[in-house]
């Protein structure tokens, strides 16, 4: 089955003022579709964290969002440094964000686990020096 709505967003590197723009746009879109507010909230939190990781760690990338009759699929990817130990990265509180970023209130190491908690399906693929790909699925009902 093919998606009904497809959107693509650029995620610029290191620009915190724009981080969250894509997830905010998706939230508006889902509101217009009349999606349940709780599901909208889960979607936008998951997408925001993935987006933020691309900004902070991934040197910029893209987000693709597809909406189907019964689900939302979000694909966020970059061609940045990648993650060496995925299991470690998934641990709550683990972060390689430098102090400067932590001072801005980011980099608490909760992002990936937050994505996992808020999505129905979550796949993280990464290869050092190649990039990182995050697949998120959230069911509409």
């Amino acid at each position, binding site marked *: 089955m093919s998606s009904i*709505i497809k959107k693509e967003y650029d995620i610029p590197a290191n620009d915190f003022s724009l981080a969250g723009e894509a997830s*905010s746009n998706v*939230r508006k879109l889902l509101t217009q*579709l009349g999606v349940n*507010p*709780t599901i909208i909230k889960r979607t*936008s939190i998951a997408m925001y964290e993935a987006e933020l990781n691309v900004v902070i760690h991934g040197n910029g990338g893209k987000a693709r969002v597809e909406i189907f009759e019964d689900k939302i699929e979000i694909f966020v990817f970059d061609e940045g440094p990648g993650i060496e130990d995925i299991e470690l990265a998934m641990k709550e509180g683990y972060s390689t964000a430098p102090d400067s970023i932590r001072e801005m209130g980011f980099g608490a190491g909760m992002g990936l686990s937050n994505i996992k908690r808020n999505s129905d399906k979550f796949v993280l693929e990464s290869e050092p020096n190649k990039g990182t790909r995050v697949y998120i699925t959230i069911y509409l009902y």
Partner: protein
Amino acid sequence: MTNYFHSVTLEEEKCRGCTNCIKHCPTEAIRVRKGKATIIKERCIDCGECIRVCPYHAKKAVTDPFSVMSEYHFKIALPAPTLYGQFGQEFSRERILRGLLGFGFDWVFEVARAAEIVSDATRQIIKTDNVKKPVISSACPAVVRLIQVRFPNLIKNLLKIESPMEVAARIAKHTISKEKNIPSNKIGVFFISPCAAKVTSVKAPYEKKESFVSGVFSMKDIHIKLLEKMKNIPQDYDCDLVSSGAYGVGWAGSGGECNALETSRSLAVHGIHNVIDIFEEIVEDRLNDVDFVEALSCTEGCLGGPLTVVNPFVARTNLKWQIGNAKKNGFSYENTAADYQDLLWTKDMEYKPILKLDDNMMKAMMKMQKLEEINDGLPGLDCGACGSPRCRSLAEDIVRGLAFETDCIFKLREKVSDLADQMKALEHIYKPKTED
């Protein structure tokens, strides 16, 4: 009263159909159709942004005429603390309150005092664990409506305590009814308002069945007359109408409600577009370390209300002086809410999904697909000439069946040029045979 009473209305004769209001409306509730602005009632939150930006003063706030006072036996004025910022230092709070009596009121009860009671209740509530944090102030009705139509997830964060205006109306009525033995329905309580949103919240309340307020007068309408009445009152006039401390007076400006809570874990935001930004952060769990959010629709808070007279920054300086004076008197702790249970909302607020394209999600998706398609074909200039605030909103209006693609002047131009081409082609076919 209908479900969609609004104080903000349009005076059609004055409207020239420009794009100022459609561009500034935070809920995209205005369109220009057939050369005149129209307000989409379901979407309007009565914030008054359009009143402020209209260069032709075609948008206004409907308030009550003074004549409604005559329906009551005993009349009480409820001035919003904002009123204290409308006058310079020669006008003490005592003078202002006494001046109000000159309008035919029998008594004045300060809304600032009720604000202190609300603050006390809020202090108690944020200490408990059974409320969703951050608690969001419900004092500004425009903000509450914004949440109702755009931020359903934040409904549970709202402070479900009646506004200072309602609390003041209730206490004032009750006090007089008991003291003077006058039946409640013979006592009129009249709010002196800085804004349209308060009028709407009285005429069509969201938190209960009926407001305690009998009528709402505009601060603008009383300004000059009040100045005149105050001239006859000596500068050092003293009276017992003053009942609020510094915290209550401070409520008029941005940060005042936060101050009264005496906690560093609070945030004050003002200006409706800034409020939207902060709410987006809360929705996405990005706002940490904050237990309470004061959100006011107007820049500088109620001091910037659309029915105020004085520049809000000047008003802030005036208010600072009033706060300083109130501190000298040191009243604040008298106004507590020992038991706030009876101040709680009696009706829960329902989400009004005004942005939804269709009740059926599948249909909404098809419409969205169409919307995106149309939007891609529009020039993306957001010029507003079509009467919709942005190209995307025109696309939305088209899928809702409320507008046509040719409302876009660029699309119209394309169409006209296509037609011209077609006519040229036809001309060639039907060219009358010339003799040669």
